[in-house]
């Protein structure tokens, strides 16, 4: 006869409520792990999907995601000349926040090197890849903008031609993909007055130097957009993505580029590691601490619940001892309830989590390994939590029946 099951049947309502409460607590533990996995996945999503063997970034930076990186646009051509390089493409990544219909519109702008890169590698769930050099964008569905919608950014209006799913930046912002030039225009957009003031200042500076006086064309060029000024303009792309020939060792290409004094180069794995160990590390530790505390709290609450359940049964346990029941029967009564509580709580956590997690603003990724690990932890804390109750029960004297 299974006493644990009979006791639960008798106190079914209380057991169900306790299980739900514990399940919700475990759901938080599960969610914390899922949020961490989501952070890692978000951080490395683009690196994993963009199909590049090497990332060339500003010297001594960990860009373009971990920190700001600026490299000249012509770096793309220099890289292309390295033996073994199949293709190189410029890449821009910058986060902007604008206002649209009174609501904040926050996105990470990714510039793709048109025409080689039209975003065909993206997980497009509706619409298409970029089809022209300007004024088109592919937006992630988390941006909640429909296909065909027109979004004004800076001085231009962009039409959403495609929608991706699950493309969010390491900071959790929705990604939007543009051609490199459009991304630059969005990134370096200045107000008309700011442009006028800058051009005027440049013009005045150019007039005061010998070069300006001897080369009037320089003065003319200084009136144009900053990005159009060769050499004098600021570096305007974030990184150059390199794809090497199939069968060619990317490490050899990396070794060549690494010797250049103005850039740093990382393999995709290196870039991935930078993101995980840099950007996500603190979040990981933060979530890890919080998760540990939650597990501790869950364990304490479980111990209290089981202890209270045991206290309620002390008289019955004394009676069992008086009847000659072995300790194993009494231990089984408490331990089975603890394990059942833990296991059912875990199921509740999983089921409710499946329903709740998609509503979280950040991605929550439940991996099978994490689920097994948490399952093991739940069984562990169930056993540990039942120990206080078991110790109490084993100390009960049969003569307490007479009390």
């Amino acid at each position, binding site marked *: 006869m299974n006493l644990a099951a009979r*006791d639960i049947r008798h106190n079914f309502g209380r057991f169900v409520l306790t299980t739900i409460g514990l399940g919700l607590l475990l759901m938080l533990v599960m969610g914390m792990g899922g949020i961490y996995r989501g952070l890692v996945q978000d951080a490395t999503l683009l690196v994993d999907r963009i199909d590049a063997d090497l990332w060339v970034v500003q010297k001594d930076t960990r860009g373009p995601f971990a920190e700001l990186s600026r490299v000249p646009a012509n770096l793309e051509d220099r890289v292309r000349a390295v033996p073994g390089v199949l293709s190189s493409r410029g890449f821009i990544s910058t986060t902007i926040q604008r206002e649209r219909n009174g609501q904040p519109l926050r996105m990470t702008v990714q510039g793709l090197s048109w025409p080689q890169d039209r975003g065909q590698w993206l997980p497009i769930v509706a619409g298409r890849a970029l089809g022209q050099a300007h004024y088109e964008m592919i937006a992630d569905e988390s941006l909640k903008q429909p296909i065909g919608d027109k979004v004004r950014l800076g001085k231009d209006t962009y039409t959403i031609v495609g929608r991706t799913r699950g493309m969010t930046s390491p900071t959790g912002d929705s990604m939007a993909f543009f051609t490199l030039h459009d991304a630059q225009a969005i990134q370096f957009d200045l107000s008309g007055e700011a442009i006028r003031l800058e051009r005027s200042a440049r013009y005045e500076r150019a007039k005061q130097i010998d070069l300006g006086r001897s080369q009037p064309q320089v003065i003319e060029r200084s009136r144009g957009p900053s990005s159009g000024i060769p050499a004098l303009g600021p570096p305007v792309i974030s990184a150059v993505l390199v794809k090497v020939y199939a069968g060619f060792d990317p490490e050899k290409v990396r070794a060549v580029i690494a010797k250049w004094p103005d850039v740093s180069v990382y393999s995709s794995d290196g870039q991935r590691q930078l993101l995980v160990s840099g950007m996500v590390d603190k979040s990981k530790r933060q979530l890890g601490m919080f998760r540990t505390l939650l597990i501790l709290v869950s364990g304490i609450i479980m111990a209290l619940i089981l202890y209270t359940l045991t206290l309620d049964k002390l008289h019955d346990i004394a009676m069992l001892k008086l009847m*000659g029941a072995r300790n194993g029967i009494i231990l089984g009564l408490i331990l089975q309830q603890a394990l059942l509580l833990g296991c059912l709580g875990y199921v509740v956590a999983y089921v409710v989590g499946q329903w709740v997690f998609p509503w979280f603003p950040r991605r929550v990724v439940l991996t099978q390994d994490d689920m097994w690990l948490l399952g093991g932890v739940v069984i562990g804390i169930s056993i540990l939590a039942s120990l206080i109750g078991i110790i109490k029960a084993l100390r009960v004297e049969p003569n307490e029946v007479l009390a």
Partner: protein
Amino acid sequence: MSALPKKADAVLEASHLTKIYGAGHTEVVAVSDATLTVACGEVVALLGPSGAGKSTLLTLIGLILSPNAGRIAIGGTVVFDNNRTQVNVRRFRRQHLGFVFQKANLLPFLTAAENVRLAMEINDHPARTATRRAAELLDYLGVGERADHLPSKLSGGEQQRVAVARALANRPNLILADEPTAALDSVRGRQVMELFRKVAHEQNAGVIVVTHDHRALDVFDRTFEMEDGVLHAADNAKQQGVVQ
């Protein structure tokens, strides 16, 4: 009232039992040099005022507490001697002893039948055997139709009969009952006492009943009184007077 049983027939031989609580100034002699023998099929009453030591004597015989001195043999097995318990107490209790208390002490989360079955399953009887015997016992005690009810749905008398069924489940040599009728009305109380007598005679078990209820003394084969921890046989004439 039967004569003192022969030693060979004795289900209980308790001799010179002493139980002292506390020490020094707080020392209380709960049972003092008590000697009691109960034969198979005999029903014995222990009378006495509250605090006389009746329940303590019962717990000593029931191996719930250990005496400070004395010797106990149950069913021919020496269970306590030389200040030491000589057997595995829990195993011995579940195999040879049955308990009934003032409160039925049924497990509230088990039905009447399950409470009886549990006593047998604890004693390693197969579930099928236990189920059959539980049904037989509950029928025998007149609560068969209440077998599937939880204790909370049973009356006090029904609960007590289920408790008796549980005590009988393992066919014990000795049944120890501590004021089993205290919570029952006189009619139900007498029914329970007569039940003990019936069980003792039919199953050849010894029964010791601690009671304050003098109305059913005629049910017992012998009666003992305790006062200040001292056990002695009750005076027959006085007893008869009480009964009348």
